[in-house]
């Protein structure tokens, strides 16, 4: 088991002094090579869960382990993609992709050719020397995905990476992500509030509800791979998304 979260609790103090329970007894596992999505409404603590795994936020009680080691801080075998691309505007696209390699002192020449390979994989070879503000939102997010993979991490943590994009771009990015993923076969832990995105991408979907953030259900997605956008019109797809939506409806919250 690659990622193991056991009975994790986390509370936040809001600015007004209220205490909000972000995560309540969250337990989950992710296996090597698996694509797992956590879907839930905003404010259900799913981003907090990702930040705990990324070593950016500490947990209160419970345990989070990666490769059997408790998470104590950022790790080099993780790649993180955030909701916003978070590119550095003073660096070129290529230099942005190289940021984690520079930070971790990886050999420069090797990283450079790797970055070029990743940009090619992301369909951005022609933009390597451009600056981020010359790119569209979708392209910027693809750069940030390439960046998350430059140090060849075995795990990708993705925090609603496509939620800022329009619906068309988003579907296109989903297909792109699956293409990149199938070429690299990394373990992906994907956060989203879109039920159909979760079903389309994942091997397994974990449903979280809010206040407190709690896991309601896990669902294995047995749609064949490679997946195509046409599958989204299939009855199997509809029954999976329909089932997930009914879980939220039963709790009175829409994702």
């Amino acid at each position: 088991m690659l990622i193991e979260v056991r009975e994790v609790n986390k509370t936040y103090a809001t600015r007004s002094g209220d205490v909000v329970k972000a995560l309540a007894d969250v337990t989950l596992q992710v296996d090597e090579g698996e694509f797992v999505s956590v879907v839930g409404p905003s404010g259900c603590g799913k981003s907090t869960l990702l930040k705990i795994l990324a070593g950016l936020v500490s947990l209160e009680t419970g345990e989070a382990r990666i490769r059997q080691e408790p998470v104590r801080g950022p790790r080099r075998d993780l790649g993180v993609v955030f909701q916003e691309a978070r590119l550095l505007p003073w660096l070129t696209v290529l230099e942005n992709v190289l940021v984690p390699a520079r930070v971790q002192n990886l050999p420069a020449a090797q990283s450079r050719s790797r970055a070029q390979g990743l940009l090619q994989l992301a369909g951005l070879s022609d933009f390597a020397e451009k600056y981020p503000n010359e790119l569209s939102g979708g392209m910027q997010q693809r750069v940030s995905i390439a960046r998350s993979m430059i140090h060849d991490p075995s795990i990708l943590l993705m925090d609603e990476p496509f939620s800022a994009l329009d619906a068309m771009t988003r579907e296109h990015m989903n297909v792109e992500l699956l293409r990149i993923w199938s070429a690299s076969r990394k373990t992906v832990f994907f956060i989203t509030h879109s039920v159909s995105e979760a079903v389309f991408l994942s091997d397994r979907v974990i449903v979280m509800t809010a206040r407190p953030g709690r896991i309601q259900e896990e669902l294995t997605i047995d749609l064949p791979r490679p997946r195509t956008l046409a599958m989204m019109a299939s009855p199997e797809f509809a029954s999976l998304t329909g089932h997930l939506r009914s879980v939220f409806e039963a709790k009175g919250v829409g994702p």
Partner: protein
Amino acid sequence: MTTRSVTDALVETTSGRIALSAAAFVTFVCLWVFALWVTQLSAVIVPGPMAVVRALWDGLGPQGAFYHHLWVTFFEVIAGFAIGAGAGLVLGIAFAESRLLHVALYPYLVAFQTVPKIAIGPLFVIWFGFGMSSKVAIAATISFFPVVVNMIAGLESAEGERVEMLTAFCGSRWQVFRMVKWPSALPYLFAGLDVAIVLSVIGAIAGEFVGAQAGLGYLLLQFNYSFNIAGIFALLVTLSLMGVGLHLLVQRLRRRIVFWQQTSERVVSA
């Protein structure tokens, strides 16, 4: 051609803009001459444009009398700016990075900032003498504040998301500073430097007013005593040319270095 398109042509083309500025200048000179003719003021009190041009030629022509003083003031401005801006930069970093320093000293910095720095001039002349060092000290003190305040604001402006991104990839505190905070602060730093270089000129001149043996401010007082009003006008033109030149130099540097951000950032007033 309608009136509207004539205006557009003047405002939106480089040659049109130059023509407009030139027209404004000619109008100004004409009004100046006209006002002198109407008021019949003595040329001793208010010189005409030609007298000022002559004084400028005497000062900045081949045998110009200003050069020695110009270099003295220029050196004071540059040295004061370098020392003040350098100190502001280092202290700004220290304040932004050390919570302890910030809490302990920042209130005093703000309090000291409200002191009109020119008022310290006489004190500095006593401490550093009538030579250039007292003017350098005043120029340094006056250039220090806009730089330190903007440096702090700039480093604190670094987006938390970007800092978190670098941290997530195992970036150390030093790497976060070098790769995220420092570049984020550069637009602010340049805004501070821009204010500081102009203030540095004011500081040097104010210092020379208090007591000096050379410099444009010293020369200005000499001209004042001898009622050389055209000379004073010529000195004012020289000083503003220096100020504008230095300001443009900083702007040029800013555009080169902070290339990713072409709109000027808001300046923290100092």
